[in-house]
């Protein structure tokens, strides 16, 4: 069978690529040492990374909410939260607690079932998408072959949830907001998918692991952002639009639609929307860093440093170091982008709905098509640099 071979700078360091931290193997060995069968050990292992990622996602949201409050305050020359914990770090917890104990209201004329199902359908695909986010060579829940494609297809479920909650609220603002959100989401998904496709074309694989390892041959210089500057910008714009962040937060534009599809929601159901949008923001930032900023890679290839210090490449110490550096780098890059998104939110005005659709269909779509075409041409012309 013809297996796609990734011709990249990464090939210069095959040993690092093939090894790395493998927590599952160690866990399985440990459990078998205690006396469990391998399949039972696997079964026990399965929920662990899921819970870990769920926790990571929620903590990520808490951090982002705190950042949002602090940065917005700074942008408006206020102080922001300061009493709940040092520098107000506990403020997001307080917010969450408040939402948790609030009364759960279902409007009298609303459709109870769909009203409840809507926020769930918005949140679940976003959390599921964390399956494919890698924090290191083996540090992800599942290295599915369709990788990034899974994320694209999962994120296409979200509009259904938005439409559902918009419809079930039995409120015209909600319905309009839901329709707008769905329209926005499907319009921006196309350029988003096309710019992802350009990256996939260069790395010959849909798997996020392969996409990152393909960028980690020469550190900073081999990141995709240099080879896909246009794709990077398109992806970032579309990701913001998918997350309904300003300047694209039309679905909940308060001057026009009160709060869009969220108008009738309160308590924990509202919190699900809230959580969903922030998890989605962090997820998008993580994926930008995976696709364009070298994922877990350090700006300088670590194996150079290792050979400088004379450490063998498969020593446990180096593996632990690269693993932790990988996690730190991924999170750092992602939060840099989150910072950018927050800054954008508090400094830019909102676009109108017609401008939004114009931008999506008449500008981003053609540009991303051209970008894809140029990438293909470059790949044929310079196979060394563009993963031929």
């Amino acid at each position, binding site marked *: *069978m*013809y*297996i*796609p071979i990734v011709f990249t700078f990464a090939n210069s360091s095959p040993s690092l690529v093939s090894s790395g931290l493998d927590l599952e193997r160690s866990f399985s060995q440990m459990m078998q040492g205690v006396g469990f069968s391998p*399949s*039972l050990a696997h*079964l026990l292992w399965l929920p662990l990374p899921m819970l870990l990622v769920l926790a990571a996602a929620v903590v990520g949201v808490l951090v982002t909410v705190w950042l949002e409050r602090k940065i917005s305050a700074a942008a408006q020359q206020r102080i922001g939260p300061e009493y709940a914990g040092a520098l107000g770090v506990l403020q997001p917890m307080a917010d969450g607690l408040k939402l948790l104990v609030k009364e759960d209201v279902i409007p009298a004329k609303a459709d109870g079932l*769909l009203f409840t199902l809507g926020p769930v359908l918005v949140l679940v695909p976003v959390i599921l998408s964390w399956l494919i986010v890698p924090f290191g060579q083996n540090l992800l829940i599942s290295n*599915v*072959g*369709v990788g990034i*494609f*899974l994320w*694209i*297809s*999962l994120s*296409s*479920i979200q*509009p*259904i949830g938005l*439409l*559902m909650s*918009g*419809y079930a609220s039995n409120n015209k603002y909600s*319905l309009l907001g*839901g*329709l707008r959100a*769905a*329209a926005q989401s*499907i319009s921006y*998904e196309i350029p988003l998918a096309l710019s992802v496709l350009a990256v996939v074309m260069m790395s010959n694989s*849909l798997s996020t692991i392969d996409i990152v390892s393909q960028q980690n041959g020469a550190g900073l210089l081999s990141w995709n952002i240099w080879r896909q500057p246009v794709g990077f910008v398109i992806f970032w714009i579309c990701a913001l639009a998918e997350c309904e962040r300003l300047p694209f937060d039309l679905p909940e534009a308060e001057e026009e639609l009160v709060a869009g599809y969220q108008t009738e929601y309160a308590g924990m159901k509202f919190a699900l929307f809230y959580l969903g949008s922030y998890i989605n923001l962090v997820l998008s930032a993580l994926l930008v860093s995976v696709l364009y900023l070298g994922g877990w890679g350090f700006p300088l290839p670590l194996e150079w440093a290792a050979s400088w210090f004379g450490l063998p490449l498969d020593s446990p110490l180096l593996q632990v170091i690269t693993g932790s550096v990988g996690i730190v780098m991924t999170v750092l890059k992602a939060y840099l982008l989150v910072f950018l998104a927050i800054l954008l939110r508090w400094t830019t005005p909102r676009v109108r709905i017609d401008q939004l659709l114009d931008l999506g269909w008449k500008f981003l779509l053609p540009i991303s098509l051209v970008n894809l075409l140029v990438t293909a041409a470059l790949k044929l012309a310079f196979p060394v640099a563009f993963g031929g």
Partner: protein
Amino acid sequence: MSISNSTELICFLVLAFVVILGSLGVVLLGNIVYSAFLLGGVFMAVAGLYLLLNASFVAAAQVLVYVGAVNVLILFAIMLVNKREDLKPIPGLQLRRFLSAGICLGLLVLMFRVVLITPWSLPGPAAIGEGATVRIGEHLFTDYLLPFELASVLLLMAMIGAIVLARRDIQTVDVGTGNEVNQSLIEKAGTPLLVDKTTT
């Protein structure tokens, strides 16, 4: 039976139930919005069946195309045309329902019979799993190249046609002569057949 086998069986049974009940709901429910949402659920369950068959690319494509595009489009159409209209009761609706139910049941029985008496060659070819994506790509560019390219023409034409049918501006002047156009001039103005049954 190993753990993975029984998990697989349970998953299959659940998904199959969702598919069957969901499709029945799509057809039988009175509220069209519920039908549309259930249709989305059916599509998702079918994607789950593909996953069980170890065809993850097909499953993801199923979700992207059917749930993300087809179902959202259907919902859009329903929600934008949100006109409550009391339709005239159709005469003999009950009889028609019985008739169509009878035909469908007959077809179902026929299919069951055919499925049971057909000598299936089991087990089928082994799933190739992750290699499927590459294999699909190769097929699209070798023996299915012609339909693949033709599909692009189909989509282009469908897009243009949809825009032509949907856009509001219609020409009012005959390009050739400069006269005012009149579509009823050519098609002798008649009432729609749905309204007027005397022409048949």
